[in-house]
């Protein structure tokens, strides 16, 4: 008999896997209103997983024959993912009731998606990276097409699936080239093999393929084509989920893999990423201007935000990593808050998604208008709101790493981007009122309020909140 591997670091993942299967059973055997019970239990499961993940958080531990790693960075990333997923799940609760959705598989698949993301973040080998990524992607494909009766949802699902499969293929192909060079798939082994090795075409092409695969998953330009369609076609709470959890997971993994095993090839991947980053920032700012559907607008907005977050990654320093983590943290609150606002855009028991529907709501629904104003100002990066600090930290890291042009382009594009964020505010406050919104649901208002408030008061409490991010970034660079 061989010894059982050390399971302690993976308690959170194991719990979530078992919880997912148990929830499936609950859903099958619960006769009345299964989705409500399952969603509640799923939120509870996220909470327990978060506690487990905090309790195992600490010194770097590797288990499962080197396939799995936990440290302060993975712990923090998992908390962000669980938080984003939990908030999205809170939004799903009233949505399911209003839309009469009774298929309890929605929260179950979300649980498995989160499991996949946590596995991605903790991956310490190209093999475990790939299975984690596939688990989350597969779950997301299903979520995108969840409204299967709707033509747009089906289109979103098929597009996402086909392009996602292509991206996975690229990633796998790149991994195989890297493996072909180094003879190992473990991150530690790769770092050894690549350190001091003379750069060769095979590895570089391999890494570029890997980057392409990731760029697809984080929806960075030019791999962003699926984003607007998927955001529009998927159910809104799922879109909220899409816009935060997978992005955080993929970006964290991106960071881990690039500054970990591939650190020595920074000169090479920096060029590629710079192009991707600049294109994402600019395209996210420009293309959003023409949008009239608020979910599509958010899609382009998220493309832009990914671009800003990537600046921190390109800096490749501890400060940059810290900036990126801050950015993702702030982005999470801004985005989930905005989607809570979108979910409270209900006219006569129907969800509406057009920007014109926001017209004049400052008079009819001042609270919603105020929340959205705070969120939009923050997205635009106007001080003293949270979004400003997010941008400030990444730009500062870029400047300190000597990447001044990148920071300048970032500032420019955020000025362009500010236009459409401010346009929303203008529509709300200065255009004539069209229709009253229905009274928002309790949990939607809760999420909206919490997110808007945390965006506003961010300036007062960064220290305790950011200590975790500092520790996370430090853990990444101590090796």
């Amino acid at each position, binding site marked *: 008999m061989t010894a059982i591997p050390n399971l302690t670091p993976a308690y959170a993942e194991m719990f979530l896997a078992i919880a997912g299967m148990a929830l499936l059973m609950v859903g099958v055997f619960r006769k009345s209103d299964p989705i409500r019970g399952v969603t509640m239990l799923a939120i509870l499961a996220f909470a327990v997983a978060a506690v487990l993940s905090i309790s195992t958080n600490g010194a770097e531990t590797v288990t499962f*024959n080197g396939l799995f790693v936990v440290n302060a960075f993975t712990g923090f990333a998992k908390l962000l993912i669980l938080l984003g997923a939990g908030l999205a799940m809170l939004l799903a609760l009233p949505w399911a009731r209003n839309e009469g959705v009774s*298929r309890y598989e929605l929260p179950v*698949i979300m649980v*498995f998606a989160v499991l996949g993301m946590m596995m991605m973040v903790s991956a310490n080998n190209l093999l*475990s990276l790939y299975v984690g990524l596939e688990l989350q992607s597969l779950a997301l494909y*299903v979520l995108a097409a*969840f409204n299967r009766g709707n033509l747009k949802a089906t289109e979103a699902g098929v597009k996402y699936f086909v392009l996602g499969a292509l991206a996975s293929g690229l990633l796998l192909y790149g991994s195989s080239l890297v493996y072909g060079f180094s*003879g190992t798939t473990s991150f530690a082994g790769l770092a050894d093999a690549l350190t001091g090795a003379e750069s*060769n*075409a095979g590895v570089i092409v391999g890494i570029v393929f890997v980057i392409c695969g990731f760029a697809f998953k984080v929806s960075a330009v030019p791999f962003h084509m699926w984003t607007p369609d998927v955001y529009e076609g998927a159910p809104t709470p799922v879109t909220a989920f899409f816009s935060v959890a997978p992005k955080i997971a993929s970006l964290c993994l991106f960071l881990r893999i690039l500054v970990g095993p591939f650190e020595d090839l920074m000169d090479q991947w920096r060029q590629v990423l710079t192009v991707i980053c600049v294109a994402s920032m600019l395209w996210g700012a420009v293309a959003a201007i023409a949008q009239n559907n608020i979910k599509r607008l958010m899609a382009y907005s998220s493309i832009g935000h990914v671009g800003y977050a990537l600046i921190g990654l390109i800096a490749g320093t501890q400060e940059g990593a810290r900036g990126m983590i801050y950015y993702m943290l702030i982005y999470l609150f801004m985005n989930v808050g905005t989607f809570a606002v979108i979910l409270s855009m209900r006219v006569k028991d129907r969800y509406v998604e057009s920007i014109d529907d926001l017209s004049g709501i400052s008079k009819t629904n001042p609270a919603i208008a105020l929340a959205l104003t705070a969120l939009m100002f923050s997205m635009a990066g106007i001080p003293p709101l949270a979004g400003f600090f997010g941008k400030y930290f990444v730009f500062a890291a870029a400047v300190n790493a000597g990447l001044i042009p990148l920071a300048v382009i970032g500032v420019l594009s955020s000025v362009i981007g500010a236009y459409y964020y401010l346009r929303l505010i203008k529509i709300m406050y200065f255009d004539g009122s069209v229709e009253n919104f229905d009274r928002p649901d309790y949990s939607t208002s809760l999420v909206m309020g919490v997110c808007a408030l945390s965006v506003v008061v961010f300036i007062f409490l960064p220290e305790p909140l950011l200590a975790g991010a500092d520790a996370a970034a430090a853990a990444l660079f101590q090796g």
Partner: protein
Amino acid sequence: MIAATLAFYLFSALAIVGALNVIFQRNPVHSVLWLIFTFFNAAGLFVLLGAEFVAMILVIVYVGAVAVLFLFVVMMLDINITMVREGFLKYLPVGLLVGGILLAELITVFAGWVMSDSADVLRAAPAPDPSDIGNTEALGLILYTDYIYVFQAAGIILLVAMIGSIVLTHRTRAGVRKQVIGEQNARRPSDTLEVVKVESGKGLQ
């Protein structure tokens, strides 16, 4: 040894012929049949490598299950090949361009191929000596120990795939009467039949 070499060339040549036919057949059903043929040759190559377990699993899983469903779907769909080919000429230049670039990249990659110094040692590390252990056992020994994490994760992926396909396709139709075997078995003659003694000349009731 000559036999093995000959078999290798035979299988690989046939695999390539099969693969080309998958692409060039006009009828999609024929394409799938050629694909199956290609799988067989791949299985043959695995046997030559001494990986008989993998060969058999390839046949069982891909040929015996996946390709059957594939064939099933292709036959049912009755794809009109001229419709599929419609945009062919329009997209040909772009396709050729992308393909050409990729080909050039691959040529540069493989022309300048180098391996890290430790690669060979690392690559050989997980494989036990084939002479003292069968390859089924060898696979089992690392699959359920060193790679148990990935193995379990793959299981969860399959579970999600299953849930997903059910969610996206299953519809509960109203008005379908299903056989309930329990009810049928629980039925007793006394529930439906009544034996009455009818006096002659009186009739029922």
